[in-house]
């Protein structure tokens, strides 16, 4: 008997050749058995929706969308996607293809979400292909300690449990084909119903979380990232963490492979202590997950700032969230740019197949401004060599000084174009007026409010380098910008999920708050750190990822400690968990899925609707994406909506074009089945909204507390949640919440530290005990378990 795996059989799992074997049936000679694929069955039965197509979960979507009717806020009244157009869609006008405003808005939302999901899917594909090529398709997955449910999204959506990299390939191929279909549906002259577009939005959101999961668990397994360790190491964060006396390589973007090879090359050559590697955006997170000595400089909004500082000797970009003018900026400081992904080539010559030393020479001698190198290993060698050769020659390059800024400010014409161009309407013109007279206080204070988009510079008729001038005025702050962040730990362990279960059941943990998304909002990290601390003190579980996780770490207390140093990294009350980069967001929703699976033993496998129904009615999780920018945030949010997790966005939220708002006064909207009796009962508006834009931090904080309420809350749990909601509402609005009576079901729900005032408010509102039920809630008729 022999087995082999070669030649034309390379795609087979099993190939047997048996010389002879005998049985009661007969004797078999020279038998060959080939099996194309060995699939692993397990005790969990296959649920109703393996590899769901576009309409498989449509009914569930429509249930949610009837409660949270999309509220459209057209960002643009026209459709200009086809050659019929432009078509004016205002009022009840229809376009040449017959589309309505609602249809067009939902179609644009779908397009945006497809862009976002494609970015993660492409990321996953590139990562997976590379890792399979380097390490082999049968490389086993090893995601987190004390964990059996290694891939909650893949199990839930696809219906199998992945064991190797190749298994992930199966799930990813499914995601890719679905996204193509979804994109196809946006072609002119097709879908006629906005709710169907919205259902497709949910679908692409769901796919996005599968793609993110694939990308992250692949890299965790192979690259040795922390495996769900609550005490993942602390890394340096901020501008000031960089040792400017060393050659410096700046990495920007999302896909960590080139950065990993830079670190590997440095280690192999014994140079790691001599060269600084610092990152911006999610690549920074993942590089620090690979090696905690890599510096995390900051979120995406630090890109212009940091390049303008003149510190980087070479800039390496990969994909997503890279400024499209990065080459221009690199030229300004005389540092070469290395592009490493087909996603962003920036017009650079393709040097993938050239000798590294030849590329290095061309870059150092400035024969070319940069190079496209689509081989991570080669990038590692070239980037290090270039940085070391360029650094000594760059002595002269210094960022703009304060005095120069003062001189430049004298050229300001007071036209006000800068302020008009500023997304946050900052008083740039006033700051210039003061600066020309030597008063830099206002200009310096803009540093904290500015997102460094650079739109002011483009608008300035004098071409003043406004961002650099702000940097110059704030140079002292910048030098002090140094703090600690906990390295992204990846998944939440199964054992942690079980640990918090009791506290959630008993109401000791009022909710799970996820702070995600970009950091492009005024006040830099301040806002998000403030939200985080408010809820950490209240013993919520606070989870963060991507640029939001960095923003949280940038705020320090009077002793210079960041929240990561003050709160433990456990997934437990008062814990602050950094899961990692953008793609690590899958672990946050994955934790919600695991709560349903691990406690109630709700089967996970291809059982999306039931799990979503469970999370929606029982798990008090809320997401907050405070900053503007990427379409990826839109698709991540969409994946939360389908799971029944409400999302709050910042003041830029109207630009998402539509909200999903509940109408609390419509009692008929807030009915569920009591799974124990089959009765339809009124449960009050919990959670009230699925997608909500808050105008201020205070509004967001109050809304987080409110949206953690769920119909399944026990009395103790509801009382705890109400305590937080009432306390916060009173603090920011100065009165009792006007909708309090919609959330108190029985006297036992009343927080006993507030009994008198709550009772008075309820009396005033004409509250009657027992009108709001506390059932075993479900929206799915099939889950009713009838009484014998």
């Amino acid at each position, binding site marked *: *008997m*022999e*087995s082999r795996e070669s030649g034309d059989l390379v795609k087979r*799992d*099993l190939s047997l050749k048996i010389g002879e*074997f005998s*049985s*009661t*049936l*007969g*004797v*078999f*000679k*020279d*038998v*060959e*058995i*080939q*099996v194309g694929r*060995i699939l692993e*069955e397990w005790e969990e039965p296959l649920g109703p929706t393996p590899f769901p197509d576009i309409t498989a979960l449509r009914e569930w979507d429509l249930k949610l969308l009837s409660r949270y009717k999309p509220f459209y806020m057209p960002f643009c009244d026209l459709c200009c996607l086809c050659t019929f157009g432009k078509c004016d869609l205002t009022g009840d006008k229809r376009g040449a293809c017959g589309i309505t405003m609602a249809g067009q808005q939902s179609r644009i939302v779908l397009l945006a979400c497809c862009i976002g999901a494609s970015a993660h899917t492409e990321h996953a594909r590139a990562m997976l292909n590379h890792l399979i090529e380097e390490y082999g398709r049968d490389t086993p997955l090893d995601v987190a*300690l*004390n*964990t*059996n449910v290694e891939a909650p999204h893949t199990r839930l959506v696809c219906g199998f449990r992945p*064991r*190797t990299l190749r298994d992930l390939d199966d799930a990813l191929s499914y995601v890719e084909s679905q996204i193509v279909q979804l994109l196809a549906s946006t072609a002119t002259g097709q879908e006629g119903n906005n709710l169907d577009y919205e259902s497709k939005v949910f679908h692409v959101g769901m796919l996005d979380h599968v793609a993110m999961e694939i990308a992250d668990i692949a890299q965790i397994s192979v690259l040795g990232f922390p495996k769900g360790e609550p005490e993942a190491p602390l890394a340096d964060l901020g501008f000031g963490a960089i040792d400017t006396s060393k050659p410096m390589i700046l990495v920007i973007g999302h896909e960590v492979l080139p950065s990993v090879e830079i670190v590997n090359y440095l280690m192999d050559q014994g140079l790691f202590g001599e060269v600084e590697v610092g990152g911006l955006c999610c690549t920074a997170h993942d590089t620090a997950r690979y090696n905690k000595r890599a510096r995390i400089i900051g979120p995406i909004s630090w890109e212009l700032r940091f390049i303008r500082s003149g510190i980087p000797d070479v800039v390496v970009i990969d994909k997503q969230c890279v400024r499209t003018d990065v080459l221009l900026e690199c030229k300004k400081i005389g540092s070469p740019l290395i592009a490493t992904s087909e996603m962003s080539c920036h017009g650079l010559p393709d040097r993938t197949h050239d000798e590294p030393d030849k590329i290095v020479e061309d870059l150092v001698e400035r024969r070319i401004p940069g190079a496209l190198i689509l081989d991570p290993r080669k990038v590692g060698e070239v980037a290090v060599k270039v940085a070391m050769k360029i650094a000594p020659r760059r002595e002269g390059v210094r960022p703009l000084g304060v005095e120069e800024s003062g001189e430049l400010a004298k050229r300001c014409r007071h036209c006000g174009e800068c302020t008009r161009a500023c997304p946050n309407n900052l008083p740039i013109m006033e700051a210039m007026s003061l600066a020309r007279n030597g008063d830099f206080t206002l200009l310096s204070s803009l540093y904290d409010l500015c997102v460094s988009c650079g739109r002011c510079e483009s608008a300035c008729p004098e071409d003043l380098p406004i961002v650099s001038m702000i940097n110059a005025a704030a140079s002292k702050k910048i030098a002090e910008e140094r703090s600690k962040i906990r390295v992204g730990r990846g998944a939440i*362990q*199964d*054992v942690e999920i*079980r640990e918090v279960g*009791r506290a959630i*059941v*008993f109401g000791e943990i009022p909710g799970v708050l996820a702070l995600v998304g970009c950091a492009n909002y005024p006040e830099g990290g301040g806002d998000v750190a403030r939200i985080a601390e408010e809820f950490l*003190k209240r*013993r919520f579980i606070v989870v963060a990822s991507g640029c939001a996780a960095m923003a949280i770490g940038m705020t320090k207390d009077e002793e210079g400690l960041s929240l990561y140093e003050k709160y433990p990294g456990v997934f437990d009350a008062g814990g602050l968990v950094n899961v990692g980069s953008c793609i690590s967001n899958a672990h946050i929703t994955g934790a919600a899925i695991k709560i349903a699976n691990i*406690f*109630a*033993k709700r089967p996970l496998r291809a059982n999306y609707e039931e799990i979503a129904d469970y999370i929606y009615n029982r798990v008090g999780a809320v997401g907050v994406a405070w900053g503007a920018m990427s379409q990826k945030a839109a698709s991540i949010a969409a994946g939360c909506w389908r799971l029944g997790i409400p999302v709050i966005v910042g003041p830029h939220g109207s630009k998402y074009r539509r909200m999903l708002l509940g109408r609390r006064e419509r009692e008929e909207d807030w009915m569920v089945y009591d*799974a*124990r009796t089959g009765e339809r009962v009124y449960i009050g508006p919990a959670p009230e909204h699925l997608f909500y834009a808050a105008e201020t931090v205070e509004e967001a904080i109050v809304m987080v507390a409110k949206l953690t309420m769920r119909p399944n809350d*026990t*009395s103790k749990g509801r009382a705890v949640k109400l*305590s*937080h909601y009432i*306390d916060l509402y009173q603090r920011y609005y100065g009165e009792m919440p006007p909708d309090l009576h919609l959330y108190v079901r*029985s006297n*036992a729900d009343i*927080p*006993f*530290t*507030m*009994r*008198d*005032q709550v009772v008075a408010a309820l009396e005033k509102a004409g509250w009657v005990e027992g009108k709001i039920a506390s059932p*075993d809630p479900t929206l799915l008729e099939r889950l009713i*378990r*009838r*009484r*014998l």
Partner: protein
Amino acid sequence: MSMFEDIPVGVSIIYEGERIRGREMQVELGGPREQYKFELVQARSLDEVEDGKITIIGPDIPGLKQGTNNPFGLLVEVAGKEVEKDLEGVIERRIHEYLNFIEGFMHLNQRYDIQLRLSKKSYERGLNTFNLIGKVLYRLFKSEMPFIEKIQFTFITDPTAVKEWYEKAMRVYEERDARARGMSDDEVEVFYGCTLCQSFAPTHLCVITPQRYANCGAISWFDGRATAKVDPKGPVFEIPKGALIDPVKGEYEGVNRTIQVKSLGEIQRVQLYTAFGYPHTSCGCFEGVAFYIPEVDGFGLVHRGFKGQTVNGLDFVTLSDLTAGGRQVDGFHGVSIEYMRSPKFLQADGGWSRIVWMPSEIKERVKDFIPTDIVDKIATEKEVANLEGLRSFLKERGHPIVERWIEAKPVEAEAPKEVAAPTLELPPGIVPIQGIPAGMGLKIILKNAKIRAERMIIRVERGK
């Protein structure tokens, strides 16, 4: 109108997680550096208690030097028609929760081990007398536990008085513990049911008896009694235990009736002291698991905090997956740590003489409750790493389980008569599945498998 309008600092659940560090504190009461400290609740008759009265024996807060630790005692006397001696402990544990609701006030531990801190900030804002603390406690007790008709508080800082009361309190704790541990399921008429976990495990009901704590380890029979009094419509309720069906297994008519209703008919019978047949269901928040190890015919125990692999190669996560969900699973049984201290612990299965392995940490915690002739015969992760090692350990130490092996031997299963189907042995390593735990098998299904043979020869053979 807020209930705490006249209190100079906030009083709310939102202050619960507050920690007051040494240099932020005005004063510490009790704490590790003080020998004498206590808090004690005593049930009295109605005429012995003056409702709302606050007494201070010794200096009030301003009389205690800033930054120092001090002997401290808090005596709470309660009365009411529903107030029973048995509820003292439950009422007493509320002090911890309530004091932590006060902004700038921290309370740790309980009984003779308490540590309280008042922050400088709150002191400066006017929280400067025990009278205010007493007022807060008064209102919170009355608001949450309306069955308390009268309640009075005595704050003691005078060292002699603290010492004197401390000794009394220690006697009360001892009596209370002796009573709680000595109380048996036979001597009460009602048990308590808890359906809190149904939000996660819809068919689960915890039956809480004097000798079987709730699986989560958080609710004793006394707690159940108090909770049911506070919120009669709530998730904790009385179960009239009804007629005793089986004293060894612990089956009661009333319990069966209740579980049938509460599980919507999914569970018909429950036997409280066994892990086989009709065991008590397991929610998802049990503190530990008792798991059957067929290879030695005994049980292993593991608790949530144990991060390694148990003796049969499975970790806590895997074992709890096999156990959880409100089901009755033979040989996988969710338990509390306190239940391990009960004389009824797995009584029908042989109790401690059936336990063969447990993590050393948990063994240390319950050591005093394991029969002395068994305690050294139970292996931990420090002595054995696998089943083979366990077998020899048990034999070597003469664990009573070994006798069961000898008894079991003669009953050898008869070999199956049918002719074995043709089997095909796969070369090792070809199936990419590793780590199949003992006691679990593999089933392989070939779909659309085509077996191609170049020639098939069918030959008739004589004599067969």
